[in-house]
């Protein structure tokens, strides 16, 4: 906690009152070590004075392998100047181990920097290292932390990766499906939340796996599709629930039915047309409604239904015209 307060003060006053390390009495015995960029560096880097000085002292303690309290402080300063420096983080872990520091304080320290550096690999890796050492009683803390990140950036890849690791290593599955639902309520287009939902229904020890959850999940996906038919994610989720097996998909009457519903209101919806195409390519016998919905899209009555769908897709999605042209070649010959 003390550490936390110190940082806030330090950050505010840094501009005015930073005492150069060389003028601090506790560092009087250390000779800073400048960066060796070689005699004639190809891409010479000009660093700011503060950064140079901090890193010069860091190099000195690092090479002396000084695992001390002041070295820990110094890594903190170096991290504030550049939180991406891999060597500083690694040395910090060695010091933390050597000094047996309370790692809960370390988590608080990470909180301070993590919020402004949510895409920094080193910070996430460090956090995982600390959380693993602290064990399952920090599971809820970690889930909450990633939740705070998602409230700013709901698709943060690092945070999702951390969250999946926490669930699998430290536990905390109980409310995860509800959490996915909460995120999807906020943004039905959030593909990360859809991915997490699939992760939960397939891996949660609480839910019994895909066989048990499939039926209700199909209903969930269909509801999402009807809300925003142009949303790629629930369409893929729906396929995923059937492991992309078109025969199983075709055997669920709800799938063809949602396509008809969507095409009735939004006749150029590429995802719905694509699903219809998959069904037709699998010898699915279309209902009158589905046939009418497709006939309404194109007046080219010479083409068979599946090829007609491809032609429509080429028109409504011209950027991928070659893809739809290729799909046309995969339409099986009429029996």
């Amino acid at each position: 906690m003390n550490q936390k307060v110190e940082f806030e003060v330090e950050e505010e006053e840094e501009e005015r009152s930073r005492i150069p390390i060389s003028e601090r009495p506790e560092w009087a015995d250390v000779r800073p070590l400048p960066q060796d960029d070689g005699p004639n560096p190809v891409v010479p880097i000009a660093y700011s004075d503060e950064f140079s000085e901090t890193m010069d002292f860091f190099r000195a303690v690092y090479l002396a392998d000084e695992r001390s309290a002041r070295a820990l402080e110094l890594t903190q300063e170096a991290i504030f100047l550049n939180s991406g420096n891999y060597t500083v983080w690694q040395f910090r872990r060695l010091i933390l181990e050597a000094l047996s520091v309370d790692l809960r304080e370390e988590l608080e320290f990470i909180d301070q920097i993590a919020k402004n550096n949510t895409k920094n690999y080193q910070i996430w890796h460090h956090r995982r290292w600390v959380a693993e050492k602290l064990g399952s009683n920090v599971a809820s803390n970690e889930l909450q932390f990633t939740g705070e990140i998602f409230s700013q950036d709901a698709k943060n890849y690092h945070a999702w990766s951390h969250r999946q690791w926490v669930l699998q290593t430290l536990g905390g599955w109980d409310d995860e499906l509800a959490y996915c639902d909460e995120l999807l309520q906020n943004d039905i287009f959030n593909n990360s939340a859809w991915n997490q939902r699939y992760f939960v229904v397939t891996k949660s020890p609480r839910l019994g796996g895909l066989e048990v959850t499939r039926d209700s999940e199909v209903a969930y996906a269909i509801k999402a599709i009807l809300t925003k038919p142009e949303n790629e994610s629930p369409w893929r989720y729906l396929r995923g629930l059937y492991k992309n097996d078109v025969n199983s998909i075709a055997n669920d009457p709800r799938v063809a039915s949602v396509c008809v519903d969507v095409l009735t209101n939004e006749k150029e919806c590429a995802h719905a047309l694509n699903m219809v195409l998959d069904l037709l390519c699998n010898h699915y016998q279309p209902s009158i409604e589905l046939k009418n919905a497709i006939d309404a899209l194109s007046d080219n009555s010479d083409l068979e239904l599946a090829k007609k769908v491809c032609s429509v897709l080429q028109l409504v999605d011209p950027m991928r015209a070659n893809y739809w042209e290729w799909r046309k070649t995969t339409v099986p010959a009429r029996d």
Partner: protein
Amino acid sequence: MGELEIVKHVKYILTVEKKKDDFESVVMEHLRLNGAYWGLTTLDILQKLDTVDVNEVVSWIMECQHESGGFGGNIGHDPHVLYTLSAIQVLALFDKIDVLDIDKVADYISSLQNEDGSFSGDIWGEIDTRFSYIAICSLALLHRLDKINVEKAVEYIVSCKNLDGGFGCTPGGESHAGQIFCCVGALAITGSLHHIDKDLLGWWLCERQVKSGGLNGRPEKLPDVCYSWWVLSSLIMIDRVHWIDKGKLVNFILDCQDKENGGISDRPNDAVDVFHTYFGIAGLSLLEYRGLKPIDPAYALPVDVVNRIFLRK
């Protein structure tokens, strides 16, 4: 629409990082070896690698090597596979892989393979399919793939395949174009592309093209020039690149140039950096833009460099 400002981009690469107090220079200090790879590979694609002093680069790179055999991001930094691959790639550009103690480097990389076939990035153990790619690409360039269990490595990558045909960082991780490049690249190098459902993945990848012509890395995300590399190289490796609108993508990349001072940004009118400059130009190379050397989609090195390594006995 405009042209590729080749002369200005060369000048940008050669002067990048020289600015005092530049944010990028502070950020770059620890990953200078990655920066060297991005910058020098760009110069090579632009056919201007001869403007660089080979010996200076090579001796600096060798000073970044750690006693473990791995490379740090700069002199005195700790080793990680991320920098080790960059070191090997830059040496490959100059036909200088021979300066390495090849077995020492290969032993460092192979020591990071885990029981399940995955790779850690360093001794601290973070696991990610990025590191699988890096290990496999590095060892292939060193002709030392026999030092790891390739079958297990492939098995792990396949375990990260998702319902949409893409790949994530670990099993269950969301499909992301950057991770997909790593997994497809590793499978291509090891001759294991049959594990990919090419039509399914190809469809997901071509859905990444948005109205502006640019590519995003995940559904509903903004386009970014870096995906011109990650998505495009993956599409090429699985032979589905004709499914996107290449002309629109070329225009999107050209729109991201700083036409005055050189360099390429993530999106039109943003600040340029060396990372996006590399990905933009590498992407244009994959699109066979005139005047550029062709680049290999799996090894991320110019094709002539790759041929020099693999067609030599």
